């Protein structure tokens, strides 16, 4: 059955809204505004009753899969459980209904929270100062690179350092952020253990390099044992090190990017610190930096003056601002609540369990699925469909078959350096029973790929729609509903 759009449920004259009766002497719009300022053609918004409105979006919610519905092993996205208490504290009126331009004395609780969260994030990453302003991971990356650029400019080397090195296994946002910051992107190859190839790195590092962007553990879920040496190579040429914090969930309380030699990192608070992903956002891409980069942080920075928390705009070397106001505050509240519920031991246990869960699933799948790097992984691992491909079943087929079995699919076709990749991140909040059920499903799919590949090629069968025609969608884009003629 085709699900109607809200517009298709509209009937002229219906309404869900109610507005207070006007208690002031009303004037006509035409009296208050010049004619040229007034809209001629009204916006075609749907007219529905409240009950229809609620039923429509409730029905849509039934057609959506979240962590609360089931296992969501989407690699690199850390789809851990989102604690309900975090939603409740973030909805407190004292956090939700405050205006960003209220005088500082009236938002001391909000500023205190931001200050303390900033300090916690510095401690967890081994950094000096934080900015909570970036709205998402990619935004944090961009901000971090801007800081690096400002740093080189302050040394008079802005013109000279034009390159940013990115491993071939990196997230796509890394090169895109570097380009947006005006840098030329140089790719460096991975070695046979899945880490950065040191020989290739030495070849590309020179006086024109501004930074190396890296995530460790990397997108293969593998810890790069040469972290310190990599940092030395880049630092000795005058470059800085950027840490992509997408994979922080593997190392909290165990090893810190600051101690590995990185100069700046972004966090994905919506991954590591359990804030929900909201169907694609909002997230938060808070960053933390070493002392050398602190002067360049975006303004304002929350400062503590005695007992008073203030917003410091007086930072002459700051890059400016990267967003309106102070960041996605509501997300910050949830991340702070999470850190404070777990404490040091809880964070470490979360990381250890995430790694245990990933290794458990990886070893149980090994043999039936091809594993490119046979090493202990961290919080995630990458397998591929090369065994299944022999029977005509590819990664996409496996992903779709998982949907039929009640699981979300892993991240697919990434990292790019592995053909038919499936990147699996179970997270620490999943029980052994859930993991076993997923493993069972994956093994069943492996079996079906031999016995009945066509079932998989046509999957999913049990979802509200089957495989969608993405080629036609891109060639003949329909990006909005159009009212019928007349």
């Amino acid at each position, binding site marked *: 059955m085709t699900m109607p759009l809200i517009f298709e449920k509209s009937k002229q004259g219906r309404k869900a809204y109610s507005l207070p009766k006007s208690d002031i002497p009303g004037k006509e719009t035409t009296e208050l505004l010049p004619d040229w300022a007034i809209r001629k053609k009204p916006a075609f918004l749907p007219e529905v009753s409240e009950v229809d409105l609620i039923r429509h979006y409730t029905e849509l919610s039934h057609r959506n899969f979240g962590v609360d519905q089931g296992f969501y092993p989407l690699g690199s996205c850390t789809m851990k459980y989102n604690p309900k208490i975090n939603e409740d504290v973030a909805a407190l009126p004292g956090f939700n209904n405050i205006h960003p331009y209220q005088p500082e004395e009236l938002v001391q609780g909000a500023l205190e929270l931001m200050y303390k969260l900033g300090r916690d994030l510095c401690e967890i990453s081994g950094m000096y100062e934080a900015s909570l302003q970036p709205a998402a991971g990619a935004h944090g990356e961009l901000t971090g690179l801007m800081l690096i650029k400002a740093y080189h400019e302050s040394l008079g080397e802005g013109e000279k350092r034009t390159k940013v090195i990115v491993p071939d296994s990196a997230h796509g946002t890394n090169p895109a952020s570097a380009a947006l910051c005006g840098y030329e992107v140089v790719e460096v190859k991975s070695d046979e253990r899945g880490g950065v190839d040191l020989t290739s790195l030495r070849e590309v590092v020179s006086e024109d390099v501004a930074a190396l962007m890296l995530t460790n553990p990397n997108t293969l879920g593998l810890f790069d044992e040469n972290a310190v040496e990599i940092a030395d190579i880049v630092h000795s040429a005058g470059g800085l090190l950027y840490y992509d914090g997408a994979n922080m969930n593997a190392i909290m309380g165990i090893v810190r990017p600051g101690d590995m030699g990185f100069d700046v990192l972004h966090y994905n608070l919506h991954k590591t610190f359990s804030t929900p992903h909201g169907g694609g956002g909002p997230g938060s891409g808070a960053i933390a930096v070493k002392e050398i980069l602190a002067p360049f942080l975006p303004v304002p920075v929350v400062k503590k003056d005695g007992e008073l928390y203030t917003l410091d705009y007086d930072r002459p070397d700051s890059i400016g601002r990267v967003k309106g106001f102070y960041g996605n505050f509501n997300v910050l509240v949830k991340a702070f609540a999470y850190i404070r519920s777990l404490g040091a031991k809880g964070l470490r246990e979360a990381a250890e369990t995430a790694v245990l869960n990933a290794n458990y699933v990886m070893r149980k799948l090994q043999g039936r699925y091809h594993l490119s790097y046979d090493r202990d992984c961290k919080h995630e691992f990458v397998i591929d469909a090369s065994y299944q491909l022999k029977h005509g079943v590819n990664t996409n087929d496996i992903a779709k078959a998982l949907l039929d079995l009640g699981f979300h699919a892993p991240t697919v076709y990434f990292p790019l350096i592995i053909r038919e990749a499936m990147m699996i991140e179970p997270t620490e909040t999943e029980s052994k029973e859930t993991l076993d059920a997923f493993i069972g499903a994956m093994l069943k799919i492996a079996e079906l790929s031999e016995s009945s590949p066509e079932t998989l090629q046509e999957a999913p069968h049990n979802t509200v729609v089957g495989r969608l025609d*993405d*080629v036609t969608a*891109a*060639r*003949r884009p329909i990006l909005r509903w159009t009212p019928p003629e007349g």
Partner: protein
Amino acid sequence: MYPKELKYTEQHEWVKVEGNQATVGITHFAQDQLGAIVGVGLPDEGTTISKGEALADLDSMKTADQIIMPVSGEIVKVNMTLETQPELLNDDPYGEGWVVVIEMADSDEINELMSADEYKDHVAKEAGA
């Protein structure tokens, strides 16, 4: 697959020379590598572009690429049909899928292009690599 009468570039464009004008498209190999092409970004007529610079953007389902100017000159004709039917680049790369016609600035540049046989070797090398 690689018509004899055409000239070719290393980046997989074909060029058909007629007088001082050159029609440009992408080769069978290029469209096969790109997979289903779903969108193009075409230049305006009257634009002058140098050899080696980007001529048009190509979006496919799995990648995004650019068509590179094989010879310098002014764009005198643009195949606007590709905007609504990008699949012509896949289905008929040497015919309906042509991209632009260039009024060449320096017709000597065509001597730097490959013949069909040379291009065939080039493709074989690239496919083998």
